[in-house]
């Protein structure tokens, strides 16, 4: 599987309601190694889904960007509207499509998530 197959894929919840598109992949150093993974092995922990990609790309999601003022407010508002999908919440992976096993309102908001 390649990251390009996940990033940009449309995400739908268990009722078929659109959740947004995959914007970022979160990894965590846990669990055993597999060939080539090196030590520690990084596992895909969660996907970040949002409507607008630009704010994420610019780095207003997790990085410590201090300005310029009107942009910080605008971009942080855009980023706040994104949701975190844990790997265990995914029901099926298709081409350009991710179907969830849970409803949209069961997902966590990105701003509650610490990286």
């Amino acid at each position: 599987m390649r990251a390009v197959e996940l990033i940009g894929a449309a995400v739908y919840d268990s009722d078929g309601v659109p959740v947004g598109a995959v914007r970022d992949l979160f990894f965590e150093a846990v669990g055993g190694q597999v060939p080539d993974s090196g030590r520690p092995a990084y596992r895909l922990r969660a996907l970040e889904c949002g409507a607008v990609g630009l704010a994420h790309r610019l780095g207003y999601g997790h990085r410590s960007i201090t300005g310029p003022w009107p942009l910080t407010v605008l971009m942080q508002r855009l980023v706040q509207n994104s949701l975190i999908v844990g790997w265990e919440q995914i029901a099926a992976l298709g081409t350009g499509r991710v179907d969830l096993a849970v409803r949209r309102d069961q997902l966590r908001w990105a701003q509650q998530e610490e990286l």
Partner: protein
Amino acid sequence: MDAGKRFSADEMLLDRQIFDADDQPLGKVDDLELTLPDGGGPPVLTAILCGPTALGPRIGGRIGQWWAAVGRRLRPSDEPYPNRIPLDQVGKVDSTRLTLTVSRDVLDADRMRDWTRDHIIGRIPGA
């Protein structure tokens, strides 16, 4: 690879410059390879992918296909799978750079550079 306990692809990996053990540039992190472990559970990051065959699909559209095709021509035996640098050859990663633990000459990962050097630039006097 050493990238701390947690990180995100966007923040540390994708589109970052790769430097080899001698501090020479070796392309960008154009894509990531994830492998589903046999025992089940979430996918594991196993390699970074670079070069035209990795970048093409990310660009998408005709330009992406064309760029990937250029890359395929330069791969041994038209191999469509991109150059992969296994994660155990990646050293320190932080939000500013990604350094490999091997030299780029060992990897044979940049045939396009070699081809340009051998067929065009190397033939101009003074190169």
